[in-house]
């Protein structure tokens, strides 16, 4: 123990247990908390507890929400004929930021990865199938462009295609605003494979 206070040491341990926070950062955060006014610390800790108490998964799309169904699923302004399938709630935020998609979402809760013990039954796949009955015309698969995401895309495509619904996947290609010459070869290769006719 470096510090004279057990409580401080405990707090550093707690911070350090969070993802992407190392021991040094944890120490800095703990010292900062020590200097914060009491009411701010109370507010902060209350928010932490509120997150656990109030935030749930939407029973329709499995995005995180405080009201069930979530505001997107409940909205009458959204196009209910298109569902965009993503891996995690973070991906919903990413797509929403574009303001270009007006359909609904479905959060799988991950991707197929036998090494991590994740099979189809661990993802919200059955729940996706039950949603198809409501007049859905297109399913957009927007999964991560890695081995697991691609495999999950293939799996879902096979499952969905016989169900007379249009299945699409987002394109893989070059980031906007970058130069062709600086693109890494793997990305450029995929972009060439996915070229479109003009």
């Amino acid at each position, binding site marked *: 123990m470096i510090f004279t206070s057990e409580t401080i040491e405990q707090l550093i341990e707690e911070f350090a247990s969070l993802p992407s926070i*190392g021991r040094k950062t944890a120490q800095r955060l703990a010292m900062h908390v020590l200097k914060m006014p009491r009411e701010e610390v109370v507010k902060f800790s209350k928010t932490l507890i509120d997150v656990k108490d109030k935030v749930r998964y939407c029973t329709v799309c499995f995005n995180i929400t405080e009201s069930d169904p979530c505001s997107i699923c409940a909205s009458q302004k959204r196009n209910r004929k298109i569902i965009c399938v993503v891996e995690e709630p973070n991906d919903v935020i990413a797509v929403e930021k574009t303001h270009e998609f007006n359909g609904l979402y479905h959060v799988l809760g991950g991707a*197929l*990865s*036998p*090494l991590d013990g994740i*099979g*189809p039954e661990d993802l919200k796949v059955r729940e996706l199938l039950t949603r198809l009955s409501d007049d859905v015309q297109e399913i957009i698969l927007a999964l991560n462009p*890695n*081995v*697991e995401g*691609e*495999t*999950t895309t*293939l*799996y879902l495509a*096979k499952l969905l295609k016989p169900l007379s619904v249009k299945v699409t996947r987002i394109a893989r290609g070059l980031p906007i605003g970058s130069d062709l010459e600086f693109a*890494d*070869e*793997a990305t450029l*290769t995929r972009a060439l494979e996915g070229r479109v006719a003009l």
Partner: protein
Amino acid sequence: MKISNAHLRSFRNHNETAFEFGTRVNVLLGENGQGKTNALEALSFLCLTKSFYASADATVMQQHGTFFEIKSVLLSDKGKEFHVRVTYDDEKKTKKFTINGADVEKFSSVIGMFPVVILSPENSSITFGSPADRRKFVDLVISQSSKSYVENAMEYRRIVRQRNMILSEAKGKDCSSEIAPWNEMLITYGSRIIGKRNQFLSEFAPYIAQTYLDIVDERETPKIEYAPSISIKPDSSLEEIAAAMEQKLAKKKNDELRFQTTLVGPHRDEIIFSLNGMSLKHFASQGQHKTFLVALKVAEFFFLKERCNETPIFLLDDVFSELDEYRSRKLLSLAESLGQIFITTTSEKIFGGAEWNNERRKFFIKSGEVAQEPVTA
């Protein structure tokens, strides 16, 4: 490519060692266990972002150390300078690679930038050892000349591991629906590797034939044959390879369930070396093995030189101890004609009478330090 200088800190037994290299020949002299090979290893780190010996980064740290650092200035054939720095921090388990001050995000993007050919005693496994050793050789050459190959190969490895997991969890029971998307991935990524290896081996053939003519007196005809787990032709298209893989997967389905592992794909490839139609592995003498290996490496040098548009750096680790004097001299004069070379050796004898200047330098290495004067007269 030329390495102008290198600065090693806490790397293996080098506490702090600085080299100013000669532009053509660099001889690292010293007794066993003094740190000659460690210096070569550091140079390979710059070019490949990892060691050619150790699999884990931490093992090349100085004993009881917590980090290591290699700094170096490399000069391209066209005269462009690259300031390269590799650091490893054992506490954070992070490796950092910077080129001209900019962080490299994908280490795989460095491979092939500074082409390197390494000839070391461990390489004898290429001709003597298992198919995996030969695949590793082929992969390293292709990787340095094609970046998409590196990434595809890494992803393929992951697909095989994922697929093996399903097969082992199935415990012999049918798992068709679960494994179906992984089959598709295995075929897509695997066929790319097989296609690339197939293409490489046919392109590499004239290089090895030419090198043999250059270095071997007797008329021996070398051959490298690709023997993947599926039957393909030298000009098979990706689609044909994929179709062959799909067929073989269907055929091996029960075997895969029984052995609980992936039996079809480039990770089962064999590459057969032969001399005058006789399998090298089964019929060649020790001398023929060594000559074949040298020829492979020199052919690799010329292949990379053409593909990368850059003269590779040639690292020769303790190669003379296994060759007779005649062959040693021959290899030396050949190597000296290639580009910048780095040689470790215990005996200076073979360089007897050579002049040492800006082009040719020798370094006496003792206990991880460079001594200017010969340690033993």
